[in-house]
Protein backbone atom coordinates (compact mmCIF):
# COMPACT_ATOMS: atom_id res chain seq x y z
CA UNK A 1 0.00 0.00 0.00
CA UNK A 2 1.97 2.94 -1.29
CA UNK A 3 0.59 6.36 -2.10
CA UNK A 4 0.37 7.35 -5.75
CA UNK A 5 2.86 9.93 -6.98
CA UNK A 6 2.16 13.57 -6.19
CA UNK A 7 3.90 16.90 -6.16
CA UNK A 8 4.89 18.09 -2.70
CA UNK A 9 4.76 21.71 -1.62
CA UNK A 10 5.68 23.15 1.75
CA UNK A 11 4.41 26.71 2.12
CA UNK A 12 5.93 28.84 4.87
CA UNK A 13 2.85 30.98 5.44
CA UNK A 14 -0.93 30.73 5.25
CA UNK A 15 -0.94 33.23 2.39
CA UNK A 16 1.46 31.04 0.44
CA UNK A 17 -0.68 27.95 1.17
CA UNK A 18 -3.78 29.80 -0.09
CA UNK A 19 -1.95 30.88 -3.23
CA UNK A 20 -1.07 27.24 -3.94
CA UNK A 21 -4.68 26.19 -3.39
CA UNK A 22 -5.88 28.98 -5.68
CA UNK A 23 -3.48 27.80 -8.37
CA UNK A 24 -4.18 24.07 -8.18
CA UNK A 25 -7.83 24.04 -7.03
CA UNK A 26 -9.39 20.61 -6.66
CA UNK A 27 -6.17 18.88 -7.76
CA UNK A 28 -4.55 19.96 -4.49
CA UNK A 29 -5.16 18.75 -0.99
CA UNK A 30 -4.00 20.24 2.28
CA UNK A 31 -2.06 17.81 4.45
CA UNK A 32 -1.86 18.54 8.18
CA UNK A 33 -1.25 15.57 10.51
CA UNK A 34 -2.01 13.15 7.70
CA UNK A 35 -3.48 10.58 10.07
CA UNK A 36 -6.52 10.11 7.82
CA UNK A 37 -5.28 11.48 4.51
CA UNK A 38 -2.16 9.29 4.26
CA UNK A 39 -4.06 5.99 4.73
CA UNK A 40 -6.66 7.19 2.22
CA UNK A 41 -3.89 7.93 -0.26
CA UNK A 42 -2.20 4.60 0.44
CA UNK A 43 -5.50 2.86 -0.26
CA UNK A 44 -5.86 5.06 -3.36
CA UNK A 45 -9.21 6.38 -2.16
CA UNK A 46 -7.97 9.88 -2.94
CA UNK A 47 -5.32 10.84 -5.48
CA UNK A 48 -4.46 14.52 -5.17
CA UNK A 49 -1.80 15.57 -7.66
CA UNK A 50 -0.43 18.23 -5.29
CA UNK A 51 -0.09 18.12 -1.51
CA UNK A 52 0.08 21.41 0.35
CA UNK A 53 1.88 20.58 3.58
CA UNK A 54 0.92 23.10 6.29
CA UNK A 55 2.95 21.41 9.04
CA UNK A 56 5.73 23.98 8.98
CA UNK A 57 3.41 27.01 9.23
CA UNK A 58 3.87 28.12 12.83
CA UNK A 59 1.16 30.77 12.41
CA UNK A 60 -1.39 27.94 12.35
CA UNK A 61 -0.24 26.51 15.70
CA UNK A 62 -1.58 28.38 18.70
CA UNK A 63 -4.01 28.17 21.53
CA UNK A 64 -5.43 31.38 22.97
CA UNK A 65 -7.91 31.30 25.84
CA UNK A 66 -10.11 34.38 25.88
CA UNK A 67 -13.14 35.19 28.06
CA UNK A 68 -15.68 34.29 25.36
CA UNK A 69 -13.89 31.52 23.50
CA UNK A 70 -10.73 29.53 23.04
CA UNK A 71 -9.14 30.15 19.68
CA UNK A 72 -7.11 27.23 18.34
CA UNK A 73 -4.98 27.37 15.20
CA UNK A 74 -5.98 24.73 12.67
CA UNK A 75 -2.60 22.96 12.68
CA UNK A 76 -2.35 22.70 16.47
CA UNK A 77 -1.59 19.09 17.43
CA UNK A 78 -4.31 17.20 19.23
CA UNK A 79 -1.84 16.33 21.98
CA UNK A 80 -1.17 20.03 22.64
CA UNK A 81 -4.85 20.63 23.24
CA UNK A 82 -5.25 17.45 25.28
CA UNK A 83 -2.42 18.40 27.65
CA UNK A 84 -3.44 22.01 28.26
CA UNK A 85 -4.87 22.21 31.80
CA UNK A 86 -6.08 25.81 31.50
CA UNK A 87 -7.97 24.96 28.32
CA UNK A 88 -9.47 21.84 29.88
CA UNK A 89 -10.71 24.02 32.72
CA UNK A 90 -12.53 26.35 30.29
CA UNK A 91 -13.61 23.92 27.53
CA UNK A 92 -13.65 20.54 29.28
CA UNK A 93 -15.25 18.68 26.36
CA UNK A 94 -12.10 19.03 24.28
CA UNK A 95 -9.85 16.94 26.52
CA UNK A 96 -12.65 14.46 27.23
CA UNK A 97 -13.19 13.93 23.51
CA UNK A 98 -9.51 13.83 22.59
CA UNK A 99 -8.90 10.97 25.04
CA UNK A 100 -11.05 8.92 22.66
CA UNK A 101 -9.36 10.10 19.44
CA UNK A 102 -7.01 7.41 18.16
CA UNK A 103 -3.90 6.75 20.21
CA UNK A 104 -0.91 8.61 21.62
CA UNK A 105 1.00 8.18 18.36
CA UNK A 106 -1.81 9.54 16.20
CA UNK A 107 -2.64 12.44 18.55
CA UNK A 108 1.02 13.50 18.55
CA UNK A 109 0.71 14.12 14.83
CA UNK A 110 -3.00 14.62 14.25
CA UNK A 111 -4.33 18.18 14.32
CA UNK A 112 -7.53 19.81 15.51
CA UNK A 113 -8.26 21.34 12.12
CA UNK A 114 -7.46 18.13 10.28
CA UNK A 115 -10.05 16.18 12.21
CA UNK A 116 -12.69 18.82 11.45
CA UNK A 117 -11.77 19.14 7.77
CA UNK A 118 -11.82 15.35 7.37
CA UNK A 119 -15.30 15.24 8.97
CA UNK A 120 -15.61 11.52 9.59
CA UNK A 121 -19.22 10.77 10.66
CA UNK A 122 -18.04 9.10 13.88
CA UNK A 123 -15.30 11.61 14.73
CA UNK A 124 -15.21 13.20 18.14
CA UNK A 125 -14.02 16.76 17.43
CA UNK A 126 -16.73 17.60 14.87
CA UNK A 127 -19.26 16.44 17.48
CA UNK A 128 -17.81 18.75 20.13
CA UNK A 129 -17.70 21.59 17.59
CA UNK A 130 -21.38 21.09 16.83
CA UNK A 131 -22.46 20.78 20.48
CA UNK A 132 -20.56 23.93 21.51
CA UNK A 133 -21.45 25.87 18.36
CA UNK A 134 -17.84 26.35 17.31
CA UNK A 135 -16.85 28.97 14.76
CA UNK A 136 -14.57 27.86 11.95
CA UNK A 137 -12.49 30.44 10.14
CA UNK A 138 -11.82 29.54 6.51
CA UNK A 139 -9.24 31.36 4.49
CA UNK A 140 -8.53 31.63 0.80
CA UNK A 141 -6.46 33.93 -1.36
CA UNK A 142 -9.48 36.22 -1.61
CA UNK A 143 -10.13 36.56 2.10
CA UNK A 144 -11.56 35.00 5.24
CA UNK A 145 -15.02 33.86 6.24
CA UNK A 146 -16.44 32.46 9.45
CA UNK A 147 -18.74 29.47 9.34
CA UNK A 148 -20.65 27.86 12.21
CA UNK A 149 -20.01 24.17 12.85
CA UNK A 150 -23.55 23.19 11.82
CA UNK A 151 -23.01 24.86 8.42
CA UNK A 152 -19.47 23.58 8.10
CA UNK A 153 -20.36 19.88 8.44
CA UNK A 154 -22.33 19.23 5.26
CA UNK A 155 -22.16 15.45 5.02
CA UNK A 156 -20.04 12.35 5.52
CA UNK A 157 -16.47 13.54 4.96
CA UNK A 158 -17.88 16.67 3.35
CA UNK A 159 -17.53 20.22 4.58
CA UNK A 160 -18.22 23.76 3.48
CA UNK A 161 -14.52 24.16 2.57
CA UNK A 162 -14.13 25.15 -1.06
CA UNK A 163 -11.19 23.66 -3.00
CA UNK A 164 -9.26 26.93 -2.68
CA UNK A 165 -9.85 27.32 1.06
CA UNK A 166 -8.07 26.04 4.12
CA UNK A 167 -9.13 25.99 7.73
CA UNK A 168 -7.28 28.65 9.69
CA UNK A 169 -8.77 28.78 13.17
CA UNK A 170 -11.48 27.22 15.30
CA UNK A 171 -13.19 29.30 18.00
CA UNK A 172 -14.65 27.17 20.81
CA UNK A 173 -17.24 29.07 22.87
CA UNK A 174 -16.55 29.07 26.60
CA UNK A 175 -19.56 28.96 28.91
CA UNK A 176 -19.12 31.28 31.85
CA UNK A 177 -21.89 29.88 34.04
CA UNK A 178 -21.76 26.96 36.47
CA UNK A 179 -21.08 24.36 33.83
CA UNK A 180 -20.73 20.59 33.63
CA UNK A 181 -19.72 18.53 30.62
CA UNK A 182 -19.56 14.85 29.76
CA UNK A 183 -18.31 12.86 26.79
CA UNK A 184 -18.85 9.13 26.39
CA UNK A 185 -18.50 6.70 23.56
CA UNK A 186 -18.73 3.03 22.83
CA UNK A 187 -16.16 1.54 20.47
CA UNK A 188 -14.94 -2.00 19.93
CA UNK A 189 -11.52 -1.14 21.38
CA UNK A 190 -10.56 2.12 23.07
CA UNK A 191 -9.25 4.50 20.41
CA UNK A 192 -11.12 2.83 17.55
CA UNK A 193 -13.81 4.62 15.60
CA UNK A 194 -16.82 5.23 17.83
CA UNK A 195 -19.91 3.13 17.19
CA UNK A 196 -21.74 5.97 18.89
CA UNK A 197 -20.37 8.96 20.81
CA UNK A 198 -22.28 11.48 22.90
CA UNK A 199 -21.21 14.94 24.09
CA UNK A 200 -23.18 17.04 26.53
CA UNK A 201 -22.75 20.36 28.28
CA UNK A 202 -25.19 21.93 30.74
CA UNK A 203 -25.24 25.02 32.96
CA UNK A 204 -27.10 25.27 36.25
CA UNK A 205 -28.11 28.26 38.36
CA UNK A 206 -27.68 28.54 42.14
CA UNK A 207 -30.91 26.57 42.66
CA UNK A 208 -29.58 23.76 40.42
CA UNK A 209 -32.01 24.69 37.67
CA UNK A 210 -30.74 24.21 34.15
CA UNK A 211 -30.13 27.52 32.38
CA UNK A 212 -28.55 26.18 29.22
CA UNK A 213 -28.07 22.72 27.70
CA UNK A 214 -26.60 21.28 24.55
CA UNK A 215 -25.99 17.69 23.52
CA UNK A 216 -25.25 15.71 20.40
CA UNK A 217 -24.31 12.37 18.92
CA UNK A 218 -21.75 11.08 16.42
CA UNK A 219 -21.77 7.79 14.55
CA UNK A 220 -25.53 7.84 13.99
CA UNK A 221 -25.70 9.53 10.58
CA UNK A 222 -23.70 11.29 7.89
CA UNK A 223 -22.59 14.01 10.28
CA UNK A 224 -22.66 14.60 14.00
CA UNK A 225 -26.10 15.73 15.09
CA UNK A 226 -27.20 18.10 17.86
CA UNK A 227 -30.65 18.33 19.43
CA UNK A 228 -31.35 21.98 20.25
CA UNK A 229 -35.12 21.56 20.71
CA UNK A 230 -34.77 18.59 23.03
CA UNK A 231 -32.01 20.32 24.97
CA UNK A 232 -34.35 23.28 25.31
CA UNK A 233 -36.82 21.08 27.20
CA UNK A 234 -34.27 20.77 29.98
CA UNK A 235 -33.93 24.52 30.51
CA UNK A 236 -35.76 25.73 33.59
CA UNK A 237 -35.94 22.22 35.08
CA UNK A 238 -33.80 20.47 37.65
CA UNK A 239 -33.03 17.83 35.03
CA UNK A 240 -34.71 15.08 37.01
CA UNK A 241 -33.82 11.53 35.97
CA UNK A 242 -37.28 10.95 34.51
CA UNK A 243 -37.03 13.96 32.20
CA UNK A 244 -33.49 12.99 31.21
CA UNK A 245 -34.74 9.53 30.19
CA UNK A 246 -37.57 11.07 28.20
CA UNK A 247 -35.23 13.42 26.35
CA UNK A 248 -32.77 10.60 25.62
CA UNK A 249 -35.60 8.45 24.33
CA UNK A 250 -36.82 11.24 22.08
CA UNK A 251 -33.29 11.83 20.72
CA UNK A 252 -32.92 8.14 19.87
CA UNK A 253 -36.24 8.29 18.00
CA UNK A 254 -35.07 11.19 15.83
CA UNK A 255 -32.05 9.39 14.37
CA UNK A 256 -31.78 6.71 11.69
CA UNK A 257 -28.35 5.17 12.21
CA UNK A 258 -26.96 2.84 9.58
CA UNK A 259 -26.11 -0.85 10.01
CA UNK A 260 -22.68 -2.22 9.20
CA UNK A 261 -20.41 -5.09 10.16
CA UNK A 262 -19.65 -3.40 13.51
CA UNK A 263 -23.13 -2.61 14.76
CA UNK A 264 -26.75 -2.79 13.67
CA UNK A 265 -28.98 0.23 13.38
CA UNK A 266 -30.98 -0.95 16.42
CA UNK A 267 -27.86 -1.35 18.53
CA UNK A 268 -26.64 2.13 17.60
CA UNK A 269 -30.04 3.58 18.47
CA UNK A 270 -29.90 1.79 21.83
CA UNK A 271 -26.41 3.18 22.47
CA UNK A 272 -27.59 6.66 21.51
CA UNK A 273 -30.36 6.60 24.10
CA UNK A 274 -28.14 5.19 26.84
CA UNK A 275 -25.23 7.55 26.14
CA UNK A 276 -27.42 10.65 25.94
CA UNK A 277 -29.00 9.80 29.28
CA UNK A 278 -25.65 9.00 30.91
CA UNK A 279 -23.90 12.12 29.65
CA UNK A 280 -26.83 14.32 30.68
CA UNK A 281 -26.79 12.91 34.22
CA UNK A 282 -22.97 13.11 34.42
CA UNK A 283 -22.93 16.70 33.15
CA UNK A 284 -25.67 17.65 35.63
CA UNK A 285 -23.68 16.15 38.52
CA UNK A 286 -20.50 17.92 37.43
CA UNK A 287 -22.27 21.25 37.13
CA UNK A 288 -23.89 20.73 40.54
CA UNK A 289 -20.51 20.24 42.17
CA UNK A 290 -18.81 23.03 40.18
Amino acid at each position, binding site marked *: *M*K*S*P*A*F*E*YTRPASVAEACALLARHGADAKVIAG*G*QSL*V*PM*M*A*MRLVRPSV*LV*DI*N*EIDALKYLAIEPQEARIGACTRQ*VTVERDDALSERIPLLRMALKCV*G*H*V*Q*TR*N*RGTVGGSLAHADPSAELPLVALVLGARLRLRSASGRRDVQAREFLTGAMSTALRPDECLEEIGWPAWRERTGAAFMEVSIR*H*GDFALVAAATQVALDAQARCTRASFGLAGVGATAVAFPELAGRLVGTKMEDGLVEEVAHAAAKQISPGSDMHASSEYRRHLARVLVARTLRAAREKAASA
Partner: protein
Amino acid sequence: MTEKLYEISVEVNGVRCEGRVPARLSLVDWLREELRLTGTHVGCEHGVCGACSVLLDGEPVRSCLMYAVQAHGHRVGTVEGLRSPEGGLSPLQDAFCEAHGLQCGYCTPGMLIAAQALLDATPHPTEEQIREAIGGNLCRCTGYAQIVEAVLLAAERSR
Protein backbone atom coordinates in the same frame (compact mmCIF):
# COMPACT_ATOMS: atom_id res chain seq x y z
CA MET B 1 8.24 9.61 -16.46
CA THR B 2 10.73 9.87 -13.65
CA GLU B 3 9.44 11.10 -10.34
CA LYS B 4 10.68 14.38 -8.99
CA LEU B 5 13.11 13.96 -6.09
CA TYR B 6 13.21 16.19 -3.03
CA GLU B 7 16.34 16.87 -0.97
CA ILE B 8 15.93 16.08 2.70
CA SER B 9 18.12 16.37 5.74
CA VAL B 10 16.98 14.51 8.85
CA GLU B 11 18.70 13.82 12.16
CA VAL B 12 18.27 10.07 12.68
CA ASN B 13 19.41 8.67 16.03
CA GLY B 14 21.64 11.70 16.48
CA VAL B 15 23.27 11.44 13.05
CA ARG B 16 22.50 13.89 10.24
CA CYS B 17 21.28 11.95 7.20
CA GLU B 18 20.80 13.45 3.76
CA GLY B 19 18.58 11.95 1.11
CA ARG B 20 16.85 12.48 -2.21
CA VAL B 21 13.35 11.08 -2.07
CA PRO B 22 10.18 10.95 -4.13
CA ALA B 23 7.34 12.76 -2.34
CA ARG B 24 5.32 9.58 -1.89
CA LEU B 25 8.04 7.61 -0.10
CA SER B 26 6.91 6.96 3.47
CA LEU B 27 9.24 7.75 6.33
CA VAL B 28 9.40 4.09 7.35
CA ASP B 29 10.36 2.99 3.83
CA TRP B 30 13.13 5.59 3.75
CA LEU B 31 14.44 4.48 7.13
CA ARG B 32 14.42 0.81 6.15
CA GLU B 33 15.33 0.85 2.50
CA GLU B 34 17.63 3.85 2.14
CA LEU B 35 19.21 4.02 5.59
CA ARG B 36 18.99 0.24 6.12
CA LEU B 37 17.62 0.79 9.62
CA THR B 38 15.45 -2.29 9.45
CA GLY B 39 14.67 -2.38 13.15
CA THR B 40 11.51 -0.35 12.53
CA HIS B 41 8.92 -2.77 11.19
CA VAL B 42 6.23 -2.18 8.58
CA GLY B 43 2.96 -3.81 9.49
CA CYS B 44 -0.33 -2.51 8.18
CA GLU B 45 0.96 0.55 6.30
CA HIS B 46 -2.18 2.49 7.16
CA GLY B 47 -1.74 3.58 10.74
CA VAL B 48 -3.48 0.82 12.65
CA CYS B 49 -0.86 -1.57 14.03
CA GLY B 50 1.83 0.67 15.54
CA ALA B 51 4.74 -1.58 14.45
CA CYS B 52 6.38 1.35 12.64
CA SER B 53 6.38 3.72 15.64
CA VAL B 54 9.36 6.07 15.78
CA LEU B 55 10.14 9.16 17.81
CA LEU B 56 9.62 12.42 15.90
CA ASP B 57 11.24 15.26 17.82
CA GLY B 58 11.01 12.98 20.87
CA GLU B 59 7.33 12.05 20.58
CA PRO B 60 6.08 8.68 19.28
CA VAL B 61 4.39 8.77 15.87
CA ARG B 62 3.57 6.26 13.16
CA SER B 63 6.22 6.41 10.45
CA CYS B 64 3.90 4.87 7.83
CA LEU B 65 1.63 7.93 8.14
CA MET B 66 4.35 10.42 7.26
CA TYR B 67 6.18 10.99 4.05
CA ALA B 68 9.96 11.04 4.36
CA VAL B 69 10.00 14.49 2.78
CA GLN B 70 7.98 15.77 5.75
CA ALA B 71 10.70 14.73 8.18
CA HIS B 72 13.09 17.28 6.65
CA GLY B 73 14.57 19.42 9.40
CA HIS B 74 13.30 17.16 12.19
CA ARG B 75 14.77 14.58 14.57
CA VAL B 76 13.81 10.92 14.22
CA GLY B 77 14.59 8.21 16.75
CA THR B 78 14.28 4.51 15.90
CA VAL B 79 14.68 1.33 17.91
CA GLU B 80 18.35 1.23 16.88
CA GLY B 81 18.78 4.47 18.82
CA LEU B 82 17.50 2.97 22.07
CA ARG B 83 20.61 0.88 22.74
CA SER B 84 22.74 1.83 25.70
CA PRO B 85 25.82 3.98 25.05
CA GLU B 86 28.03 0.91 25.56
CA GLY B 87 26.22 -0.79 22.70
CA GLY B 88 24.23 -3.37 24.65
CA LEU B 89 20.51 -3.52 25.22
CA SER B 90 18.82 -0.65 27.02
CA PRO B 91 17.28 -1.28 30.46
CA LEU B 92 13.84 -1.38 28.81
CA GLN B 93 15.01 -3.89 26.19
CA ASP B 94 16.57 -6.02 28.94
CA ALA B 95 13.28 -5.96 30.81
CA PHE B 96 11.41 -7.12 27.67
CA CYS B 97 13.79 -10.12 27.46
CA GLU B 98 13.44 -11.01 31.11
CA ALA B 99 9.68 -10.61 31.34
CA HIS B 100 9.15 -12.43 28.01
CA GLY B 101 7.57 -9.27 26.60
CA LEU B 102 7.76 -10.69 23.08
CA GLN B 103 7.28 -13.86 21.12
CA CYS B 104 7.50 -13.37 17.36
CA GLY B 105 9.02 -9.91 17.81
CA TYR B 106 7.18 -8.18 15.02
CA CYS B 107 5.52 -5.57 17.24
CA THR B 108 8.50 -5.23 19.57
CA PRO B 109 10.27 -2.21 18.02
CA GLY B 110 7.02 -0.25 18.09
CA MET B 111 6.28 -1.39 21.64
CA LEU B 112 9.77 -0.34 22.75
CA ILE B 113 9.42 3.10 21.17
CA ALA B 114 5.97 3.65 22.71
CA ALA B 115 7.13 2.43 26.11
CA GLN B 116 10.39 4.38 26.06
CA ALA B 117 8.50 7.60 25.21
CA LEU B 118 6.23 6.92 28.17
CA LEU B 119 9.15 6.29 30.54
CA ASP B 120 10.95 9.41 29.33
CA ALA B 121 7.91 11.53 30.26
CA THR B 122 6.66 9.44 33.20
CA PRO B 123 9.48 7.43 34.80
CA HIS B 124 7.15 5.52 37.15
CA PRO B 125 3.91 4.94 35.30
CA THR B 126 0.87 3.07 36.58
CA GLU B 127 -0.31 -0.05 34.77
CA GLU B 128 -3.16 2.01 33.35
CA GLN B 129 -0.75 4.59 31.94
CA ILE B 130 1.30 1.81 30.36
CA ARG B 131 -1.77 0.28 28.74
CA GLU B 132 -2.77 3.72 27.44
CA ALA B 133 0.73 4.30 26.02
CA ILE B 134 0.82 0.99 24.14
CA GLY B 135 -2.89 1.16 23.24
CA GLY B 136 -2.03 1.97 19.64
CA ASN B 137 0.32 -1.00 19.23
CA LEU B 138 -1.05 -4.39 18.25
CA CYS B 139 0.55 -7.62 19.48
CA ARG B 140 -0.92 -10.92 18.33
CA CYS B 141 1.30 -13.18 20.48
CA THR B 142 1.66 -12.12 24.07
CA GLY B 143 -1.79 -10.96 25.13
CA TYR B 144 0.03 -7.82 26.32
CA ALA B 145 0.36 -8.94 29.96
CA GLN B 146 4.12 -9.59 29.77
CA ILE B 147 4.69 -6.40 27.82
CA VAL B 148 3.06 -4.42 30.63
CA GLU B 149 5.15 -6.40 33.15
CA ALA B 150 8.30 -5.59 31.20
CA VAL B 151 7.63 -1.87 31.30
CA LEU B 152 6.81 -2.04 35.01
CA LEU B 153 10.05 -3.96 35.58
CA ALA B 154 12.11 -1.36 33.69
CA ALA B 155 10.44 1.44 35.66
CA GLU B 156 11.04 -0.36 38.97
CA ARG B 157 14.72 -0.82 38.18
CA SER B 158 15.18 2.87 37.48
CA ARG B 159 14.23 3.75 41.06
